[in-house]
């Protein structure tokens, strides 16, 4: 006998990928993004340089306190009027005025010609110029001045419990990967669950549940749907990642990802990713099956999509205190553990016990949810035109 879950998965997968909407969002959209990037990379620098060339990147200033010294880039004007004329003639890109009470108020007025993207006000450049002049004006020697401008070139050393130096592991790429995977997990859940909700909603609206269940068991049907829609989600994410990688490796960011090792951390992140996806998929399918339409299914399953998003709300706190009680609780809670554990990986050494416990809890949760969802899904698929009440859902769970 053929694996009927695979028949369902293949059918659902092809049904979605043949749709024009999927072709647009999954393929055309990233292609457009890639074309935009290629355009930006090839034409933006020349556009910027054209803009800069007209003014030679020069900035004017009018200094009523007399502490600034002009340079090749910073041209001094004695009054506002000639500076304005130079700005209009495109001799300078902008100018600023240092008022007489600057040492009391720090007040600087910046003039520029328009607020266009290429002609935006160079605030950081002006700040740097002011700092240099202030250090010189205050007679700070060159060495100290340089240190004030660049106070540290940090080298981090981590000690273990015995005081020995631990091997440095935080390459930027390796640091970013778990975050990227956490983000991808959320994105995959959102994408796949969207398709899953739509698919089950359509199933309920077309009332095919009874016909399907006469040919295939509810568990097989549920597995097939999760596999089919999950594959659609992963295909979409895969296309985005592929396009993203092409973009990254054709940009200066490529250097960050050179020499990334497929470490245990990376393997664990993949494991959390897969387990996390299945837990969310089985929960969302269950929620969708007790609703009467796609719209209602979206509302019902909101509770589970919220579980995926909540860890992000705590992201800043988790990063500041990755070993706090809150972080640990989130690590054990099955719906948040994939995202939170992936966030904590690059920040702290998570104990073996914590990792094993959270994975075991996650696997048990998937087992329990699959069992419960199978029952709810079977009965939910037979209900047409109305949402199952809580009492009815409890009744479904009591079914043999």
């Amino acid at each position, binding site marked *: *006998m*053929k694996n*009927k879950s695979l*028949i*369902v998965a293949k*059918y659902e997968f092809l*049904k979605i990928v043949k749709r024009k909407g999927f072709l647009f969002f999954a393929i055309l959209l990233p292609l457009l993004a890639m074309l935009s990037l290629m355009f930006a990379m090839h034409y933006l620098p020349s556009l910027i340089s054209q803009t800069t060339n007209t003014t030679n990147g020069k900035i004017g200033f009018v200094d009523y306190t007399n502490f600034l010294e002009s340079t090749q880039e910073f041209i001094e004007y004695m009054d506002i009027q000639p500076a304005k004329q130079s700005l209009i003639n495109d001799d300078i890109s902008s100018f600023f005025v240092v008022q007489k009470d600057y040492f009391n108020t720090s007040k600087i007025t910046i003039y520029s010609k328009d607020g266009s993207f290429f002609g935006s006000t160079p605030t950081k450049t002006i700040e740097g110029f002011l700092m240099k002049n202030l250090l010189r004006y205050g007679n700070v020697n060159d060495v100290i001045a340089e240190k004030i401008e660049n106070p540290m070139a940090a080298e981090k050393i981590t000690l273990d419990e015995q005081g020995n130096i631990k091997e440095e592991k935080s390459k930027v790429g390796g640091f970013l990967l778990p975050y990227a995977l956490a983000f991808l997990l959320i994105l995959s859940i959102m994408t796949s669950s969207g398709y899953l909700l739509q698919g089950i909603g*359509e199933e309920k609206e*077309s*009332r*095919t*549940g*009874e*016909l*399907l*269940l*006469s*040919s*295939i*068991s509810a568990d*097989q049907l549920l597995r097939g749907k999760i596999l089919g829609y999950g594959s659609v989600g992963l295909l979409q994410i895969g296309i985005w990642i592929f396009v993203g990688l092409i973009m990254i490796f054709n940009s200066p960011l490529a250097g960050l990802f050179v020499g990334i090792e497929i470490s245990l951390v990376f393997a664990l992140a993949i494991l959390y990713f897969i387990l996390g996806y299945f837990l969310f998929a089985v929960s969302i399918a269950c929620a969708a099956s007790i609703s009467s339409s796609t719209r209602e299914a979206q509302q019902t399953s909101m509770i589970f999509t919220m579980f995926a998003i909540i860890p992000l709300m705590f992201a800043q706190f988790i990063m500041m205190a990755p070993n706090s009680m809150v972080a640990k609780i989130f690590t054990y809670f099955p719906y948040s553990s994939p995202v939170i554990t992936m966030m904590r990986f690059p920040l702290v050494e998570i104990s073996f016990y914590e990792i094993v416990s959270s994975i075991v809890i996650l696997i048990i949760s998937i087992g329990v949810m699959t069992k419960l969802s199978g029952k709810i899904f*079977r009965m939910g698929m*037979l209900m*047409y035109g109305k949402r199952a009440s809580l*009492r009815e859902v409890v*009744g479904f769970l009591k*079914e*043999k």
Partner: protein
Amino acid sequence: MTLKVENLTKSFDSKNVLDNISFSVKKDEVFGLLGPNGAGKTTMIRVILDILKPDLGEVEIFGEYFSEEIKERIGYLPEESGLYKKIRVSDCIRYFASLKGMEDIDSKIDYWLEKLNLQEYKNKNVQELSKGMQRQLQFIISIIHNPDILILDEPFHGLDPVNTKLIKDILLELKNKGMTIIMSTHQMDEVERMCDRILMINKGKKVLYGKLNDIKTQYGFSIIVEYEGKLPKIGGVEKVNDYGSSAELILERNANTQNILKNLVGKVELKKFEVKTRSLNEIFIEVVENEK
């Protein structure tokens, strides 16, 4: 025995939907599953198909307890018109047929579309079909894998007389080829014409079960009269459904029809006097009303 149901009980929210029901269906027979709305027919079918599990009792099909393999030997036409609307007719049939374990599907699709005059819709979307055509498409899905048992829930629902006859002819053809057919319907005339045996349930309880002819004989005879005048009180008649110029006389068991004819002659001007077994529709109504 193709299907054997023993002491089947199923309840929802402590309400007994099926109450200790036993029956069997033989090979090659057309079996009628009857009952008023809410009697428990659909629940019964769902339990037979293992979509729902019984609280008590057992279902045996081909002498075995239910398994996933058995599903491939059963065809089912549900009452609900459940079809995917946005896919092609041929794709819809192919998907459901593959779930029944079929492999060489395409030639069968053409055969059945041709037989039900739907060939020209093969590559059209299901939603372009009329309701009647969609019902025919569901019928194809239920039989394309040549099942040993075919379970039909209101098979003629939504069909015009021409297509009703077409489906009926196909069913009789399938029966002659050895297919067992279980049919749940409210259309009693179709049951009378097609079914060998019936089971009638009401409020989850078995109220009639057996050969159609035996049941009809058991419920006695009635006489249809067309007349002029005033009908007298006649011995041996249990109930009179008088319509003015015609009447149906429901007879007591063992009533003598000759005596009744003698009693009527001379008292009314008789234009028609027809003795017949009672229709299944009358028996159905009587049974349901007696249960109230």
